[in-house]
């Protein structure tokens, strides 16, 4: 089977203006969402408590709410269904420092009489730990981007590095926008998903860049835009296929992986789609905007070769004793 038979080059760069507009609208929209609605930080970053309760029968949410009202420490607590109607999650901003009796224990005692239940998970994150995790999280995103920037600059050229970072920022912004849009809780796993998107989206971009690099070396009289179009077309099958297989697994994770892995899978799902799109329609056009001059590159390359040859000539003269 072949999805894309390589017979003609698609005019990607010609359509890049339209793509640019779509991208800018999406990124700006994401920024607007982040500014207005904001991210819904979960306990990992904001601090607080999560208690996951599973009942034998459907969870009596109203009755639970009533019970929780009896104690001030549950003020502002929210109860939401978690995966099935027997299971709920109670979220609150309260944390306690006592080791022996914590919020989880208080919750268990308060819920006595609401039916037969089991406390399946208690997460308590103190504000100090929460802000430390947040700090570390931001640091890790910055470090990952920097590490990638340095590597790409080293393996390709600075313009390639900048273009790939533009694509990365694009992907992460849109993924964050989507998270804000659906009001997904941002915890450590979402951060892990974002870092994976960084790596993954770049993966696609690099494959295209690798072809462009090859094209530059091969053809000296071809327009840069043409090289890009040719490279994207030639890698189109690979880009689509790998994205497809990855999408398969992320989708099964999203569908069957369980409620705990949901936010992680959702972030990846959005990231992979956006990441694939960006490696074709964002990274390469950005490269074009920065104006990589193929001819100049070849002149430079030729000069370098000439210098090498000259050196070689002098060396051989020296060795044979002719000065």
């Amino acid at each position, binding site marked *: 089977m072949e999805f894309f038979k390589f017979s003609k080059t698609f005019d990607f760069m010609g359509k890049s203006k339209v793509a640019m507009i779509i991208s800018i609208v999406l990124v700006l929209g994401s920024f607007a969402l982040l500014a207005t609605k904001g991210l819904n930080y979960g306990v990992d970053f904001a601090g607080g408590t999560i208690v996951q309760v599973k009942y034998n029968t459907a969870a009596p949410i109203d009755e639970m709410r009533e019970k929780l009202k009896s104690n001030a420490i549950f003020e502002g607590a929210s109860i939401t269904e978690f995966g099935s109607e027997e299971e709920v999650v109670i979220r609150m901003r309260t944390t306690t420092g006592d080791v022996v009796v914590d919020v*989880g224990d208080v919750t268990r005692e308060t819920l006595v009489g609401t039916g037969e239940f089991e406390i399946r998970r208690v997460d308590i994150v103190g504000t100090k730990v929460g802000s430390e995790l947040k700090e570390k*999280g931001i640091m890790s995103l910055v470090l990952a981007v920097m590490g990638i920037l340095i590597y790409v600059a080293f393996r390709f050229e600075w313009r390639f590095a900048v273009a790939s970072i533009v694509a990365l920022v694009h992907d992460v912004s849109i993924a964050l926008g989507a998270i804000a849009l659906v009001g997904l809780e941002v915890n450590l796993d979402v951060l892990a998903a974002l870092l994976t998107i960084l790596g993954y989206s770049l993966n696609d971009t690099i494959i295209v860049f690798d072809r462009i690099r090859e094209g530059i070396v091969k053809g000296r009289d071809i327009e840069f835009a043409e090289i890009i179009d040719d490279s994207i077309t030639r890698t189109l099958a*690979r880009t689509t296929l790998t994205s497809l297989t990855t999408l398969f697994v992320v989708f099964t994770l999203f569908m069957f992986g369980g409620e705990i892995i949901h936010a*992680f899978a959702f972030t990846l799902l959005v990231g992979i789609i956006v990441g694939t799109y960006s490696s074709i329609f964002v990274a390469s056009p950005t490269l074009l905007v920065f104006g990589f001059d193929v001819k100049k590159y070849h002149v430079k390359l030729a000069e370098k070769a000439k210098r090498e040859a000259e050196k070689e000539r002098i060396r051989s003269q020296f060795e044979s004793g002719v000065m």
Partner: protein
Amino acid sequence: MRMKLNYRITLFALAIIFVIFFSAPSLFQLQDGKKVTLGLDLQGGLHMLLGVKTEEAVKSRIKSIAASVKHFSERKDILIDKLNFDENGITLTLLDKDDVKTIQSFFHEIQGAVVVAVDESVSLSLSDEEILKTQQQAISQAIETIRNRLDQFGLTEPIVARQGEEKILVQLAGIKTIEEEQRARELISRAAKLELMAVDEDRAARVYSMTQSEAASYGDVILEDATNPQVKHLVREIPILDGSMLTDAHVGFDENNRPLISFSLNAEGAEIFGDFTGKSVGKHLAVVLDSKVYSAPVINERIGGGSGQISGNYTVMEAKDLAIALRSGSLLAPIYLMEKRSVGPSLGADSIKASLIALVGGFILVIVFMVVYYRMAGIIANIALIANLFIILAVMSLFGATLTLPGMAGIVLTVGMAVDANVIISERIRELIHEGKSIHKAIEDGYANAMSAILDANITTLIAAVVLYAYGTGAIKGFAITISIGILASMLTAILGTHGIYEMLEKRIQKSKNNLLWFGIKG
């Protein structure tokens, strides 16, 4: 036609045998051999980050100096007019100015003491350096104590470690019930501070009408009774001796077969205890544990030998835990909860089930897709994919790495991403065949051309994974581990494994001339 063996396929085959051998213990849950450890989120367990209230350690250090100077002055017949202490230090006013020198030299023996003498009074405070040292010591001592206690609790491989400057990480796997968890938490956090205190006989009758501050003005403190909080005791604030002089504690039974704890004191403790009881016949002695009075019997005679009992209204289990706590030493400073993550075993089992379904589902989808799209080339890529899974499992088993739920997600993701290298290669080969190259040339050049893309693409993903490992915490680290191993394994299986398979089959592919069968393309 004979297939030729080449070094790539030989190495690959050896690697496969190796990884199957090392993943077997984990896969079949064999008794012997190194296995993958399941994270707390998969097997259930308790993870806690604890903080230490180090300022309390400084306070109790000063309190114990106060107790020792009191004992010292009694032995030397030095009369103390007033003895005050707070978290900053001790001030002592003596009746006789001649004794100042003796007290001063006693204080000077104490490490890190800053001693100032004015007229009849001597004051002691601790140097900043000493305070810092005391605080640091409180943390290391807490780690040591908690570890000792948990080692005797009976769970397999409890983890107690320092995290950062001032946090203590406690991880307990295999906790089955809430009751068990609570017992562990009680054991960990129990101060287990034993104090033997003198009852203030002169004022004891007025205890119910006295405020805590009034008691303090007499140098006393009001403590609750352990069995009945309504009952109050008025005791001297400076203890006769404390649990630091304890050498052993174990569970015994009284005449009614109720559990009690017998303890023994070291030589110094025994001496102080003997001195005090000898002097105080007919008076009451309060046995105080964690600021609660467990008993306050009348002293009938001098008690030598340095042993005593703590009787209370506890179950055998409670008495046992208490004895463990006393034996392992008291916590110099109270601890508090900074982070807790507790997962019940049933949730862990559900998570394993769900992630396995996702793994199998994703795996089948990818495998079928690869065969439909690439035919034989797809089957070869699938062999590499299966090898990848074994490699991840084997490497994790060998290093005793922990498999967490995000780690499982990492493996699922690897299934989707690991075919990437082979997709890149297959596409290159297809391209070269379309260009009319021979099979041999197409395979060799396909691999050569794909190499730089495979390397660059995977290394950048690896950079992100390594950062995640360095900055990630707990379960997230597990994701970084599986994804990193997965990436490295996919490069290895593609460069070594599938290349070797193609080389071996090359002649056969050439002879068949069936590109549709081998590469899924016409022509």
